[in-house]
């Protein structure tokens, strides 16, 4: 094409044209075309496997997460966690580049492990992978063995590793892969016939709320149940500021994790982010294995406490009975602010099941439930939960749809509010409804990762956040004649 002919004038959309399209994207017709998409994904509400692996890798005492692959990924995972928790999120990487693509990443791994170990003196270096080594098929088993054989790393340094390709599953699957690998490494040779630590192993799953993790621990402490939380991110991602930076501010003690194979019971509170781990634990661990839903709301917390009471033959402490009664008191006192309100919810599978069950308990009406990457099994479980209550009627569960699909739903079939992570704020703004930030990541508010959503206190926290926001809106949008002292 001759250059002159190719030169077009800079174009400008007319205001009318812009207005036309602006209205068009809110129509039923647009929604149909939008849902007809099969290749393009717009505003997905999930991240990739290695992010989940890093959450686990950082949640063990003295563990230095190690990304085998591209350094860009490591920096993205670190900045994502730092923006959510407003905390440091250390992780290192062996920075594979073009030559790695050709010759594989073994040399990078050698140098990376050597330097990481020397500089940061970790007790454990959990390794996980990015796209590149997965596509070119790096053999981590061999690489790590060679690294130790060739003296890049002392033999005794714990180097669990997991293949976490971002082109299948999401961050919750990376969490699962890394956790299984770390436990395999730590419990190696620790299983002693007949031995029982008398302890409960708690696996919280991929949960960006340190308040939730603390609530699980508090419940166990109140019930006098000794526990080990496997992948405990609560201190790592909520350490204090006292003038000294600590690279390893907490996490599950390695000895405790090692011993966990001889635990009295193992409890996973997120089914979908511990699938392979629990299958492995089923085979390898002593004691009972229990998978329960995240205890959002009163009924699910009751179930958890009854199970713990049964497992450890402990009475339900007065303090928890009191907290239960106070939660029921708060919910009965404030049900008028949520009853019948329609909600859209977006997030990870285990969070969605918990939030929806809390809404049903309050007489609220989940209406659009969306998980941008999930299995039919999950959809079946969600639909069953919805059918268990009259307030679930009319709700639709969407899997493998994204937040641009959600936007179409919100503007064509309006609801009162949407519950999800920060990414949902654009759809909430277009639909002119409030966003209740329960999920991961939350990078536009402060401290919402500190107070629990689970347990009896968590039920009060969720109820308070939602009810008070609706009342804020009422006060801020009503005409003078409807502005009132009492709400």
């Amino acid at each position, binding site marked *: 094409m001759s250059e002159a002919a190719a030169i077009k004038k800079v174009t400008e959309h007319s205001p009318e044209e812009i207005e036309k399209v*602006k209205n068009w*994207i809110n129509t039923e017709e647009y929604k149909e075309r939008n849902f007809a998409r099969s290749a393009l994904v*717009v505003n997905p509400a999930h991240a990739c496997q290695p992010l989940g692996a890093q959450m686990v890798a950082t949640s063990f005492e003295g563990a230095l997460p190690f990304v085998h692959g591209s350094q860009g990924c490591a920096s993205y995972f670190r900045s994502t966690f730092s923006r959510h928790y407003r905390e440091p999120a250390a992780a290192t990487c062996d920075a594979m580049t073009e030559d790695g693509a050709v010759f594989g990443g073994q040399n990078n791994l050698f140098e990376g492990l050597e330097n990481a170990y020397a500089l940061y003196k970790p007790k454990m270096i959990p390794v996980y992978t990015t796209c590149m080594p997965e596509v070119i098929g790096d053999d981590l088993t061999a690489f790590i063995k060679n690294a130790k054989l060739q003296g890049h790393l002392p033999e005794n340094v714990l180097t669990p590793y997991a293949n976490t390709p971002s082109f299948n599953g999401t961050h919750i699957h990376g969490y699962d892969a890394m956790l299984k690998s770390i436990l395999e490494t730590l419990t190696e040779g620790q299983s002693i016939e007949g031995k029982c630590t008398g302890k409960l192993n708690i696996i919280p799953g991929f949960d960006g709320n340190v308040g939730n993790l603390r609530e699980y621990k508090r419940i166990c402490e109140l019930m006098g149940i000794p526990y080990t939380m496997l992948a405990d991110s609560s201190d790592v991602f909520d350490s204090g500021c006292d003038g000294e930076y600590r690279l390893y501010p907490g996490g599950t003690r390695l000895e405790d994790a090692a011993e966990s194979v001889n635990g009295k019971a193992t409890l996973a509170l997120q089914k979908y982010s511990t699938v392979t781990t629990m299958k492995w634990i089923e085979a390898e661990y002593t004691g009972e294995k229990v998978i329960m839903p995240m205890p959002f709301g009163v009924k699910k917390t009751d179930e958890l406490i009854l199970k713990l009471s049964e497992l450890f033959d402990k009475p339900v402490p007065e303090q928890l009975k009191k907290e239960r009664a106070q939660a029921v008191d708060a919910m009965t006192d404030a049900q008028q602010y949520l009853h019948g309100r329609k909600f859209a919810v977006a997030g990870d599978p285990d969070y969605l099941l918990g939030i929806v069950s809390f809404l049903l308990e309050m007489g609220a009406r989940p209406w659009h439930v969306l998980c941008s990457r999930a299995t039919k099994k999950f959809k079946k479980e969600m639909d069953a939960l919805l059918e268990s209550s009259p307030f679930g009627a009319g709700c639709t569960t969407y899997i493998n749809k994204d937040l641009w699909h959600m936007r179409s739903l919100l503007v064509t079939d309006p609801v009162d509010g949407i519950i999800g992570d920060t990414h949902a704020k654009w759809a909430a703004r277009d639909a002119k409804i409030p966003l209740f930030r329960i999920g991961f990541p939350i990078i536009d508010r402060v401290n919402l990762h500190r107070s629990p959503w689970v347990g009896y206190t968590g039920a009060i926290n969720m109820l308070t956040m939602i009810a008070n926001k609706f009342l804020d809106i009422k006060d801020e949008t009503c005409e003078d004649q409807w502005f009132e002292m009492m709400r």
Partner: protein
Amino acid sequence: MAERKPIKGVTIESTEKLIAETLAEMPEKAAKKRAPHLGANEPTASPCAVKSNKKVVPGVMSQRGCAYAGAKGVVWGPIRDMVHVSHGPVGCGVYSWGTRRNLMQGVPGVTSFPMDFTSDFQERDIVYGGDIKLEKLLKEADELFPLNKGMSILSECPVGLIGDDINAVAKKMENELGKLVVPCNCEGFRGVSQSLGHHISNDSIRDHIIGKFQFREEPGPYDVALIGDYNIGGDVWAAKPILEEIGLTVKSVWTGDGEVEKIGATHAVKLNLIHCYRSMNYMCKVMEEKWGIPWLEYNFFGPTKIEASLRAIGECFDDTIKANVEQVIEKYKPAMQAVVAEYKPRLDGKTAMLFVGGLRPRHTIGAYEDLGIQITGAGYEFAHQDDYDRTAPEMAKGTLIYDDVSEFELEKFVEELKPDLVGSGIKEKYVFQKAGIPFRQMHSWDYSGPYHGYEGFKIFARDIDMAINSPTWGLVKSPFE
């Protein structure tokens, strides 16, 4: 450039001793690789002794990102009227969605697209290739976002490893859709940092965009283009008005709040004004060679640099513009003096250490100095030699220069030099705040800004004073120990 006053306690010897001590704690091979990248500043040395633009030393915990981040995050993301497709698995698109604060005008989802478009590669796309899916996806995007002025295909790592041919797909779809479809092979594993991503993106602009459009208005004597301002926190909206106030016509901005067609018509301007030299010098050189457009580096951080830049810009034009320059400088002087008068007393004599991307470690020094703050250490994630050469004269003798500094090194340096402020990124912010050291994000302006131009300096001064003089730091030391 007036040479900087020496800083108390900071000498070539003390700095070199610090560097040596730090390297001593590293494995030998790593120390050998890192040594050339650390140095005590010699303001007059040319070229600057500090080496740069080399591969990350594995395992040391570098702050660098990747080529995709340099392409999508820095160059393409800010262009508001294009659909930018993160081509590959879901992660890269999600982590970079809205996390660079390149603000943009327009109706979101209609005329501007501050969104995450991705092909969300699954295993089968790795095995069977993603080209067919890419074609389908571009059609779907053009249908659902009809007012887009073009689409970019930004390759993630797998694309370059599985033999996909996004260039062919781009060409085919540009014809089929009658829309700009720009391929950019910015796989993350390419090059050593974000920097190659800038370069590859500049090349894509060169090969697929520039020259394809012409401005609607007739060319004018004062037509300029603003190169390398990405509108972080509204920086372009604080810089452009000043240039217009001295009589220039800013025809296009690369690429903050950018419009792709105007970028494609930039070959018609009279002068390219470049703020971030590192990310966009490539296209300045191309436009100079191909269309004879001169280009001038300028600096809008802080009154001293603003005034110098305006006068330098004035020199490229006639007396009318020169007169306007003096008028504008006089007009804003009182306001700038008022800012200095309010904040300098509380900041004079303080020190700061900077570690940012490829420009700000040197470019913001003027603004800090306007407030009486001396820079005791500076370094870049992904600068090259020409950046370090421009940095040396801006810093006092013996101050510390560190290229691609690792977490390990930066902690040691900060612990030793005890600056009153560290200016770096989100991955460093909470490390140093835990140590009780005030911090400002000098990538994202800590969600504040703008920091460019006269309006920006007011906000910058307020924020630096807030960070350093916040009473909360007085609480860090616990009375219980």
